[in-house]
C-alpha cells in the first residue's frame, strides 16, 4: 500500500487526530499524541495495513531546530576545556516528539508515525499494549528525553540510574559537575607529563576551584535497588 493511501485511510478513520502527511526521505503521518494507542491498534489489526512490527521508537527534542534547513540548530551544552559543565541561561523551548517506524511483514510496506507534544506537558499514549517491544523503547524515551507515556505498565528509567537528575537527550540538558558527590574534575590530560615513573599532573591544569569533598552524611544511600 502506498504511504499516501495509508495516510488517507487513517484520516478517514480518525479525522482530526491525523493531521499532516509527512513527505520526506520517509513517508508518514503526523498524529495526535493522546490517540496514538488506538491508531496503533488500528494499524496493527486492519488486514489491509497489518503493521505487526514496530521497528523503532524514537523520542527526540525539537528544541532550537532550524526548520529552514540551513543547519543552524542550537548547539548542545557540553564541558569547557577545563572539564567544567557549560552553563547557559537559554531556556529550552520547542516541542518534544516521538517517531514510530513501522513495518508490515505481510505486505512489505513501511510507514512512520510522528507525534509532537508540548514541552510543558510531554505526555503520549503508550503503545506498549499494541507492540510489547514499545515498552522498553518508551522507557528509554522517558529516560533520555523525558517523555511520559500514559498507560505504560512500568515507566521508569532503563539505561540511567534511578536517581539520575534530568534527561540527557534534551537540547538544554546541562552536563553534571559531579556524580553523587564525586566531582568530575576537568584535568587537561594532554598537558600532563608522561614518563617511565608514571604521570605527573601539573597543578595549574587542575580544576581551579577546590573539588567538593563528598560528605558522608549527605551522600545518598546507594544500596541494592530492586
Amino acid at each position, binding site marked *: 500500500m502506498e504511504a499516501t493511501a495509508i495516510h488517507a485511510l487513517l484520516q478517514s478513520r480518525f479525522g482530526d487526530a491525523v493531521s499532516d502527511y509527512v513527505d520526506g526521505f520517509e513517508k508518514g503521518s503526523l498524529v495526535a499524541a493522546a490517540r496514538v494507542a488506538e491508531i496503533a491498534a488500528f494499524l496493527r489489526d486492519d488486514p489491509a495495513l497489518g503493521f505487526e512490527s514496530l*521497528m523503532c521508537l524514537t523520542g527526540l527534542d525539537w528544541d532550537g531546530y532550524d526548520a529552514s534547513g540551513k543547519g543552524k540548530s542550537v548547539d548542545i551544552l557540553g564541558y569547557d576545556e577545563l572539564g567544567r559543565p557549560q552553563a547557559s541561561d537559554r531556556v529550552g523551548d520547542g516541542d518534544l516528539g516521538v517517531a514510530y517506524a513501522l513495518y508490515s511483514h505481510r505486505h512489505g510496506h513501511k510507514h512512520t508515525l510522528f507525534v509532537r507534544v508540548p514541552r510543558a506537558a510531554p505526555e503520549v499514549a503508550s503503545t506498549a499494549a499494541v507492540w510489547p517491544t514499545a515498552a522498553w523503547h518508551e522507557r528509554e524515551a522517558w529516560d533520555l528525553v523525558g517523555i511520559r507515556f500514559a498507560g505504560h505498565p512500568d515507566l521508569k528509567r532503563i*539505561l540511567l540510574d534511578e536517581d539520575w537528575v534530568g534527561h540527557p537527550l534534551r537540547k538544554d540538558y546541562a552536563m553534571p559537575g559531579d556524580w553523587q558527590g564525586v566531582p568530575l574534575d576537568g584535568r587537561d590530560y594532554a598537558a600532563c607529563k608522561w614518563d617511565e615513573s608514571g604521570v605527573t599532573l601539573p597543578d595549574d591544569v587542575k580544576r581551579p576551584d577546590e573539588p567538593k569533598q563528598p560528605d558522608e552524611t549527605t551522600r545518598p544511600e546507594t544500596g541494592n535497588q530492586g
Partner: protein
Amino acid sequence: MSETAAGRGWGGQDVRRELHSELLEINMGPQHPATHGVLRLLVRTDGEIVHGVTAHIGYLHRCAEKIAEGCDWRQWMVYTDRFDYLAPINMNFGYAVAVERMLGVKVPERAEHIRVICAELQRIASHLIAIGTFGLDMGAWTPLLYCFREREEILNILERLTGGRMLYNYFDIGGLRFDAYDGFERDVLAFVNIMEQKIPEYDTLLSYNKIFIERTADVGVIDLATCLAYGCTGPVLRGAGVPFDCRKDDPYSIYDRFEFDIPYGEGEQGTVGDCWDRYMVRMREMYESCRIIRQAVDALPGGPVKAEDLKKLVKVPQGSLYTRTESSKGEIGYHVFADGGSKPFRTKVRSPSFSNLHVIEKVGPGMMLSDLVATVGSLDIVLGEIDR
C-alpha cells in the same frame, strides 16, 4: 516447552508441587559469566523454577546518541564501532548506509564489494563467538577454543586490512577510509576454504552432540508471534521459522547481486524456535556468508574506494529516515534526523540485542533456572549495543 521447563521432573512427577518453597530473588549478574557482559537479571525463583525475570541494563551506557549531537557526520562513525564490539563492521555498515541514503551518494563499486566481504567476515567472527560461548554455557569447553582458532584468522585479515584487531573504524561516509592491501583477496579466499571445511567439524563436535541437544532442543521456545510482538530480529526471528533477512527483504548495498539462502529454524530436534534452532541458524549462516564472500571476491573490481564528489564536512539535507541493515545479531537500525547542517540533530540506534533481550522477561517465567542460562546464551546479546 520441555518436560523440565514445564515443571515436570525426570520421573514425571510435578516438581512444582513437591518442591514448592518460598519465592527467592536472586541476581544473575552483573558479574556472572553466563550473562555475556555486564547484565543483571533479577530472577524470582521457587526452587529451580523461574517465576519472573527482570533485566537491569545500562551498566555500559555512554549515551553515544548525545555524543552524536556534538560530532559531525563522519566523526560519529568511530562511536558506532563501540556498540557491538564483536561485530563493529556491521555497526559501521548500518550507519554508513543510513547517511549515504540521505545524502544520495553513490558508493564506488570496489568499496561496496570490500564492504560486503568485511561485513560477512565479521558476521562469521561474531557467530563463532556466539556458538563458542553458547557451548560454554552448556558446559562444552572445547568448541570455544576451536571457534577462537578460526576467529583469529578473521581478526588477522582485518588487522592487516585496517590496523585494528577489535575496533576497526574502517568504513567512511561514501566508501572506505583506504583501499585493501595487496593480497587481500588471496587471504580471504584462503580463509574461506578453511572455514567451509571447519563447519562440518563443529557439527560433529557440538551441533549433534547428544548432551548439547538435550540441553537446547525444546528449551526456550520463542514462537513467531512473540518474536514479532517483541521486535526480535536476526537469528532469533529466523529461528522461529521465518526466512526474514534485511539483506534479502530490505536490500541495501549490493546484496541483491549475490546468491545465498536464508537459513531458518525447522524444529529439526524439537520445537520450532527453540534454542537449538537459533543456534543452528547461526551455524548455517556462516556457510552462507562464505558463499557471499566467494562471489564478492570473484566480482571484486578495481577503482576508487571513496565517493569523489563528497566534501570532507558533509551536510545531510533536512529530513528523517529510518534505515536498517542486518548485523550478526539482527536488525541494526539508525533513525536519523537531520537539520541540514554538519551534525546529526538526533540519531537513534535501534539495536537488535535490546529487543532480543526484552523477550527474556516474557519467555523466562516457567523455565528451569538452567534453561534460562541456555536461553540467554542462545539470544546472543552484546551489552555494548544494548546500553549504547
